[in-house]
């Protein structure tokens, strides 16, 4: 129970602070700490993050950070991308895609700190 509380609180803290990355905390925590299978972990993580994101969105909206015109276009793109993603999921070799993504993240992270 304490593990779940800590995992949830940490994921919420990160989700609220960065508005992203909650899933990247929850999925490995579910798989490696709570010993859930990967499919359930992913599905459960999305449902768990949803209320955290809605609450965070209220705070960001109150601080006038949401540009609704761009945000709604991105929401539309996100739906299209997610549908494409699930179709592509079986065809793309995960291994190389993931390492490309990791290198991009490292590069972008260093850039953000240096600049």
């Amino acid at each position, binding site marked *: 129970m304490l593990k779940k509380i800590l995992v*949830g609180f940490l994921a919420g803290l990160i989700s609220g602070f*960065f508005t*992203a990355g909650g*899933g990247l905390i929850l999925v490995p925590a579910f798989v490696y700490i709570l010993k859930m299978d990967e499919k359930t972990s992913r599905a459960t993580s999305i449902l768990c993050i949803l209320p*955290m994101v809605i609450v965070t*969105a209220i705070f960001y909206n109150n601080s006038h950070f949401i540009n609704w015109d761009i945000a709604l*276009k991105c929401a539309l793109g996100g739906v299209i991308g997610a549908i494409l*993603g699930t179709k592509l999921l079986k065809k793309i070799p995960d291994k190389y895609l993931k390492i490309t993504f990791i290198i991009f993240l490292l590069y972008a*992270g260093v850039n953000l700190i240096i600049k």
Partner: protein
Amino acid sequence: MIEIVLSIISGVISGLGMGGGTVLILFLSIFLGMDQHVAQATNLVFFIPTAIASSIINIKNKNVNFKVSIVIIIFGVIGSIIGAIVSTKLDVYLLKKIFGAFIIVIALIQLYLWYIRYIKNKNRNNKNIKT
């Protein structure tokens, strides 16, 4: 138009379970020169419809663990209120630097998980085949 393209790419990455939101924030700040706070806010709206749609499908397919969800949601919401209050008040320059450090940490975690899945486990499987 460019924001739709960027969000489609991020949506695909989300579907692969690799942190589409993180990528969208980076894209918006790199390609559209968006302020860190505004980019993060856009990501929130980006996430909601996809998450609702996939949660409906996941619940129908009985892939959701509700017992775990309840605890995570209660303490997650408390955490996110604290996180959101702090980040919305934070200086934009500082937030950008912290975000940079955060994605490096995320990348290193992902690199470790990648190593376990594709290198370590592959070697173990190979050994099993040989013996």
